[in-house]
């Protein structure tokens, strides 16, 4: 039996706001196996983003343990967490978070700039271009974000998340800024990553439609895990094919 990629043990996160203590996470226990596509849902303020930040090693839990690939990362230093983010985690944000005035290729290259040991420039270029190509954006390498559509921008962001070959991709509302058609396109891309490269994906959404693409759906409420169920995922590929005629009519 394989060991879990992510293992949370009674994870708690509190924020101190003056005299008030906000319990963002009240005790989450959770294992995620490699190759799972986990959709985390829940109403606004339920603690989804807080969980995501801890999973992404951007924040540390107040209490509890977080094992990533068997390593306890709950109490690492800022720089150690930075290295883990760089090597093992790819982020996809709702707002894409691409650097403006910078080409698609250079945006994808950014994580490689912080890799240790540092790769030679031509190698970095080649890797970034390969990641862009896998997202079908080779011909857009020299475009700036403002010259790309929302879907293209999000695919550049996914290429950037992939460039360092992480074991985990964290996506916080990746379709939040996209229309339905483009959302399905992005979901198909994520499904393909899981199927073809067996990358583990954790996706946060408050849309049940989007959560339905995952192999497992976790629902969070008031900082606690309320339900955790396996799911027969919808196939984004099938839906896209179904959408084509509509696109032709329109």
């Amino acid at each position, binding site marked *: 039996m394989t060991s879990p990629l992510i293992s949370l043990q009674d994870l708690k996160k509190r924020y101190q706001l003056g005299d008030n203590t906000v319990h963002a996470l009240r005790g989450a226990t959770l294992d995620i196996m490699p190759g799972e596509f986990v959709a985390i849902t829940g109403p606004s303020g339920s603690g989804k983003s807080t969980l995501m930040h801890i999973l992404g090693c951007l924040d540390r839990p107040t209490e509890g343990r977080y094992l990533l690939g068997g390593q306890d990362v709950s109490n690492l230093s800022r720089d150690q967490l930075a290295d883990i983010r760089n090597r093992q985690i790819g*982020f996809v944000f709702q707002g894409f978070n691409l650097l403006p005035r910078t080409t698609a290729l250079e945006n994808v290259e950014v994580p490689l700039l*912080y890799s240790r040991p540092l790769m030679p420039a031509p190698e970095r270029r080649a890797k970034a271009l390969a990641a862009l190509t896998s997202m079908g954006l080779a011909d857009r390498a020299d475009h700036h974000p403002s010259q790309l559509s929302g879907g293209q921008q999000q695919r550049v962001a996914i290429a950037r998340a992939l460039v360092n070959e992480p074991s985990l991709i964290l996506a916080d509302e990746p379709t939040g800024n996209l229309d339905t058609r483009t959302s399905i396109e992005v979901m198909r891309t994520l499904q393909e990553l899981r199927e073809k490269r067996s990358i583990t994906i954790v996706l946060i959404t408050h849309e049940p439609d989007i959560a339905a693409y995952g192999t497992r759906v976790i629902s969070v409420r008031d900082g606690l895990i309320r339900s955790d169920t396996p799911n027969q995922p919808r196939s984004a590929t099938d839906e896209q094919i179904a959408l084509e005629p509509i696109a032709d009519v329109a």
Partner: protein
Amino acid sequence: MPAAHDVRLAASALLRNRVQTSLALLGVMVGVGALVTSIALGRGAQASIHDQLLAAGANTIVVTAGNYQVERPPNNEETVGHGTAAAAVLRPSGPDVVVSLDRLDAGFAGGRFIRSHYEDDPMAVHDHPTAKERLGDTMAGLGAAATLTLEDATAIRDELPGVQFVSSGVHENARIAVDIVGGRSWLTRLHGTEADLPSIRRGWTFPHGRFLKAAEVQGSEQVMVLGRVVADRLFGEGVDPVGRVVKLWNQPFKIVGVVGSRTWTSQPVAGDDQFDAVYVPVTAVHKLLNLSKLNTITVTTKSAGETTQIAKQIAVLLRKRHGISESMSDDFTVKSQAQQALGKGLPPDLARIVSANMGSVDQLTVEQLSASLQKTNGTLLALLAGVAAVSLLVGGIGVMNLLLLSVMQRTREIGLRMALGARAADISRQFVLEGVVLAAVGGVFGALLGALAADLLNRWLGWAALVAPLSVVLALIVALLLGVASALYPARRAAQLDPIRALTHE
């Protein structure tokens, strides 16, 4: 993070806020420029002080025949060498060879017959502008003692290693006449001298012609160099008299040059000893007047610091040559010109500063004079350095302000870079580099600006300025340090941002 990428990133980040970057750049430029200019002015002042010190004769020793101090009565201290009163007091102690002063008797000058030397008659009214000063001259009365010879001069030149130039001299008052329409003549100071004199009087220039040549001195030729004042009076202002012939003691002398001053410490005026004067070969004077003695031997030392010591060596040498025993006093006077440099060589302001810094003017040595000038210069330098430091501080604040703005504008970018794996050091290096790029650009242009300013001050205001390559290098290093120092705080702020807050920053 790779360096080339870093620099490019810093440059593009700086270009984002063009106006603020330009202002910060201007601040750095002014600071660095002020530094370069102030160093240039400081060094210029130093070089100029050294130059003036030497031009004023700080390394000059004058040996005068006779020793007037020996027989000065103790009750007569306030009488300092004037006319007949002085002559009675200042009795030369050397062998009593009296130089005849009546040789002007036969002189026919300016159509007027001169019966006697004008200084011979104590009742005479001297309308010559130099007469009064002339009588106060330390030389007056001393030259009468004929104890120095050309051989003494040669001995000083050959036997004392620290000696640089030696020029022997006979000094007289003489009327120089020129045969132009109406006739014109000028009563002035006559120096019989040698070819080395311009090397001793460093502040000389020759607007026309040249100084006496060694061959002319050797051959007792009747050639003459006019002081600027004499040339102007005899031939009119600015007229080139080279090649013309004047009469001295009714003998023709061919003019070979005109001597003027190149320093601000002494400008030619009527009555001064250098430019209201004429110069002829000492040998020609000896031959025409049938003399063999000298009034003075003027010596310069190789280093201004050795003057006092060499003055002593000269005294020892001359005592030996003159066969003066232990108990007897010198038959000559050795005087280094530091005191004179203080009194008349330097401009009044500088002299006042110098004397304010001196314990006692009497004990003044060249070393002390030099040290005092350096101290004054040091104060000036400190002041300039203060101005530069304030400018640099202001420049640094400008850089810091720009970088803080940059950190604020790019908070989201910083958060993103952190999420993608940038360590704290990666983030802070990015901002330090921004400061360094800014400072480097500002430093290069500032150094150019400073050098230009120094040059313009030099050209327009005549301030001494010396831009050394080393000071430019220093300025660039200071600029880079300034860039780093100003960037440290903004860089630290950027590096300590919380990644989540930075990422969600609006």
